[in-house]
């Protein structure tokens, strides 16, 4: 099964307006499978969420994290078991903090990297110089409330460029929720999991293996057929509430690689099979492919879903 996750949420423990209890209730109402608590620079909500979920015997899963809110950028941290101090953050070497967090088993990502920053909102934009792109795990490619062209599109392109260079970074997204905000038709993160499975483990597996989907609704699956030498792409409905799609909307697949972008239209709203040689027309090198699903045309406004990168096709 696919699990729909909301990975970036704040409560009254930092600057949100929902208490931990209200956050759980809100996520349950919105039919989310798992949510993270990622308050700014505090983990005080963790034990509250844990206690409340135990009391309620709720089936919703929780992920414990924090948004490290530093002078030079926000670092989203998931599966965080203990608070690590961030104040010695080095503008020129953020990897020091990334490594410390990863040593403790946390998943480390860059939140809203191109958000507006100094001089009006110090720290909101990620200004630090990263030299080791293996030192963190994911990039928040869509921070839903942020402007599409100025903030989210550059984040998506940054992630794509790094992935095409071979860095094993996953894509995530989030609401950056600070209240009862409308989540209809917004991007959510999806991972594979099993009913009743350990969400922290499933999230870790997904992020470490670049198996995250970022989508407003449907999931784009890909499957290599070695006998036919084709790649089959299938659209799978996740029933995410609020996804806007009409029967007349055409689905379009793009596959970006180092050598260019292949664009194909789905003949129906279900599946599309492409011969491998059409995916790599100009090169003997079979580089990473980034599959994306659009509605009607390939304008960023019509981007429906980003699927896990296809790393090797032999």
């Amino acid at each position, binding site marked *: 099964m696919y699990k729909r996750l909301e990975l970036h949420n704040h409560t009254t423990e*930092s*600057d949100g307006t929902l208490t931990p209890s209200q956050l759980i209730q809100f996520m349950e109402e919105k039919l989310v499978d798992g949510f993270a608590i990622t308050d700014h620079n505090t983990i005080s909500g963790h034990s509250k969420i844990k206690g409340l979920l135990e009391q309620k015997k709720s089936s919703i899963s929780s992920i414990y994290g924090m948004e490290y809110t530093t002078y030079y950028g926000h670092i989203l941290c998931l599966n965080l078991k203990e*608070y690590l101090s961030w104040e010695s953050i080095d503008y020129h070497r953020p990897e020091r903090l990334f490594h410390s967090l990863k040593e403790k088993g946390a998943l480390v990502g860059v939140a809203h990297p191109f958000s*507006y920053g100094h001089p009006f909102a110090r720290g909101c934009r990620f200004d630090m110089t990263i030299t080791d792109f293996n030192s963190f795990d994911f990039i928040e490619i869509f921070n839903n409330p942020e402007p599409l062209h100025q903030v989210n599109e550059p984040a998506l392109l940054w992630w794509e460029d790094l992935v095409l260079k071979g860095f094993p970074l996953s894509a995530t997204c989030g609401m950056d929720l600070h209240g009862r905000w409308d989540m209809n038709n917004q991007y959510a993160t999806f991972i594979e999991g099993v009913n009743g499975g350990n969400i922290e483990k499933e999230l870790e597996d997904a992020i470490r293996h670049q198996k995250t989907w970022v989508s407003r609704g449907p999931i784009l699956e890909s499957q290599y057929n070695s006998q036919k030498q084709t790649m089959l792409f299938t659209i799978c409905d996740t029933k995410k509430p609020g996804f806007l799609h009409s029967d007349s909307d055409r689905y379009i697949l793009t596959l970006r690689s180092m050598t260019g972008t292949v664009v194909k239209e789905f003949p129906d709203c279900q599946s599309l099979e492409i011969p491998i040689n059409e995916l790599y027309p100009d090169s003997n090198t079979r580089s990473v492919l980034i599959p994306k699903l659009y509605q009607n045309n390939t304008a960023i406004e019509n981007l429906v879903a980003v699927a896990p990168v296809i790393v090797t096709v032999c």
Partner: protein
Amino acid sequence: MELIYETGGILNEGFVGQISYTVCLDKVYDAMDIEFTFDKQHYQTITEEMGKKTRESCRGTEYEHASEEELMDAMRGMKTEIHTIVTMNDTFIGGVHKQLTTRHMVYSKDFTSDGCIPQERISGVVKVTLAVFNVLLDGTNYRLKLSAGNEEKQISPDGGAYV
């Protein structure tokens, strides 16, 4: 509650960094209140010179081509931003991100402030760090008070205030 430590200082415009205070408690307490206040959170008046200076610091950023009106609006929204972080015996016990110019970090048996982790008892070494993200104006004053006690009823139900 007994006042254990009180201090204060003045911040200059543009300062980014931390100021930490460490208090060694020689008794065991069951309640503690850390009160932090600061002033000059926003520009009271925006002079032409301030506008020019801000315009200058926008060079190379997404605000570079903002109109005068947009710049003024943005400046009215600018704020001095200070986080407070507390550790006890080197363990994190709370952080406040909410930009309240008067804030309390209260730890007691009945109540713990938002952002803080409940503690069975207060003892040992308490370190309060002011993480200063932004200071708009020279001469920004701040005060910090640390009080502790053993009578739970001294903490009011809404926290913060104590008798």
